[in-house]
C-alpha cells in the first residue's frame, strides 16, 4: 500500500534549487534509503515531507490525503515523525521529558485543564508517562530517565531522538543519518533497532552515508544528486548502476 507519495516536489531558496521535481513513493512497511553526496538535497527533502519547509512546487500525498502546505506540527499530527542529522534534543530537560514531548500529539490537556488538573488530565499524564517509559525501554535508556538529556553520550543521544520520534506513534519514521559519528558497535545497535521496528511493521525512510548499513538494511534506495532523483532501485541495482558509481561511489577497485 502507498503510504507517501511526492509528485514533482520542488524547493528553491532564492535562485538555488535544492530539490528539483522529485517523484517518489514509500510503501507501508518498507525501509527506504536516501543516499547521495552532501548538498544533494536529501535533508531538504526530509524537511519538505516533515513540513518544516513549504514546497515551492509539487505535491505531497500522505495516506491518500493531499498534505500540501501542512506545517511541521500538522505533519506530526498526521503521523510523520523524524530525527535530525545534527541531533536536536532539549538538553536541559530530562531524558523522560524529551520523550514526553514526543507524545504531545497524543494528549489533549489544555492550559485551563492543566491548571485545574482534574481526573481526566491526571489520567492522561499517567498514561503518557507510562508510554514514554516504554519507548525508553525499547532503546535501552530507561535507567537514564531522570538525567538531563545533555549528559548522554553521543550514541545514546541518537537513540533518545529515535525514542522521542517513536512516541508520536508515527505511521512514517524519517531518520536523518541515524549512525553519523558512531562507532561500529553503536552502528550495529541502531541496525538491530531498525530491524526490530521493521518487524513491527513500521515504515522507515532513512538518509545514510554508511554504505554497509544502507546495503544491508534497505529494501529500496533512491539516489539524489544536485537536488534531483538520479536513480532508484534495490541496493544491488544501485551498486551496479554506472551513473551512481560515477557521481557518488567512485570506481570499484580504487576503493581498496
Amino acid at each position, binding site marked *: 500500500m502507498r503510504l507517501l507519495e511526492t509528485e514533482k516536489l520542488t524547493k528553491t531558496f532564492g535562485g538555488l534549487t535544492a530539490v528539483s521535481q522529485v517523484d517518489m513513493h514509500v510503501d507501508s512497511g518498507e525501509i527506504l534509503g536516501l543516499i547521495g*553526496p552532501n548538498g544533494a538535497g536529501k535533508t531538504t527533502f526530509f524537511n519538505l515531507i516533515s513540513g518544516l519547509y513549504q514546497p515551492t512546487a509539487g505535491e505531497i500525498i500522505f495516506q491518500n490525503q493531499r498534505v500540501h502546505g501542512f506545517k511541521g506540527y500538522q505533519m506530526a499530527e498526521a503521523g510523520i515523525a523524524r530525527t535530525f542529522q545534527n541531533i536536536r534534543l532539549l538538553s536541559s530537560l530530562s531524558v523522560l521529558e524529551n520523550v514526553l514531548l514526543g507524545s504531545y500529539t497524543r494528549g489533549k490537556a489544555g492550559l485551563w485543564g492543566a491548571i485545574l488538573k482534574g481526573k481526566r488530565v491526571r489520567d492522561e499524564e499517567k498514561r503518557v508517562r507510562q508510554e514514554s517509559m516504554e519507548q525508553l525501554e525499547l532503546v535501552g535508556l530507561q535507567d537514564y530517565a531522570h538525567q538531563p538529556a545533555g549528559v548522554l553520550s553521543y550514541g545514546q543521544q541518537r537513540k533518545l531522538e529515535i525514542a522521542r520520534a517513536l512516541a508520536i506513534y508515527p505511521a512514517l519514521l524519517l531518520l536523518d543519518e541515524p549512525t553519523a559519528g558512531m562507532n561500529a558497535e553503536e552502528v550495529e545497535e541502531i541496525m538491530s533497532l531498525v530491524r526490530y521496528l521493521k518487524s513491527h511493521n513500521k515504515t522507515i525512510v532513512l538518509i545514510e552515508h554508511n554504505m554497509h548499513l544502507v546495503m544491508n538494511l534497505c529494501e529500496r534506495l533512491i539516489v539524489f544528486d544536485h537536488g534531483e532523483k538520479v536513480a532508484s532501485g534495490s541496493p544491488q541495482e544501485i551498486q551496479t548502476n554506472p551513473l551512481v558509481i560515477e557521481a557518488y*561511489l*567512485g570506481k570499484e577497485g580504487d576503493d581498496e
Partner: protein
Amino acid sequence: MSKQIAVKGLEVSYGSVEAVKGIDLDVENGEIVTLIGANGAGKTSTLQAILGLERVKAGRVEYLGETITNQPTHRLVRRGLALVPEGRHVFPRLSVNDNLSLGAYTRSISKAELQRLKEKVFLLFPRLLERKQQMAGTLSGGEQQMLAIGRAMMLSPKVLLLDEPSMGLAPIVVKSIFQTLKRINEEEKLTILLVEQNAKMALGLAGRGYVMENGKIVLQGSTDILAHDPGVMKAYLGL
C-alpha cells in the same frame, strides 16, 4: 628530523566535562600524521587547543621547539600554523577570490606574489579557478572543502592542520581531496596533522597515526600496523 609540533599531557575541559584527558602527540617535519577516533573522542578539541581556539587546562603545546600553550589564535596563524576547520567555514558571502585573499591576510606580500599564490592554489584545485568570482556559499560541499584547503595554503604554512576534511562528502570527492593532500605533502614537503573519523581514508594517507577514545590516546604507531590492529579493524574500519 625535527619536531614541528609536540603536545605533552594536554588536557581540555568544558565545565565539568573533560574532553581531552592528558595526551601526548608529536608531528615531525614533512610527515603526515593522523588522529582518528569516533565522534566525541576529543579529536577536534585537541586541534582547537593546539591553535588556541580552546583553552588548555593543563599540559603543554610546542611549535618548532617553542612553547605556544594558550597563545591567541591570530598570533599562531601569523607564525605559519594553518587550520582547515571542521565544517569548512568558508566566508559564504565573499567570492572565492576574496576568500583566498583573506588566507594571506597576515602576510605583507606584493600583489604579484599574492597572484602567484592564488595560481598555485588553482593548480591544485582547478575547480576553484572556474568559480573564482562565485560566492563561496553557493559552492558545493566538495568545492567548499577545496576552497578551505586552498585558503589555508595561501598562508604558505609550515604545518597544516585539517579537521575532518571528508565530512559529509561523497566518497569520490573525498578520494580526490586526499590525493591532493598527498601531492601537497610530497611536492611542498608540508607537514600535515589530519583529524579524521573516516579511518580507512586517513590511515591510507598518513604515515603515522594515533587512535583516540574518550579523551585519551589508546593506540599509536605506523599506519600499516594500526590498519591491521584487530581493535581498530573492528571499531573503525567496520571489518
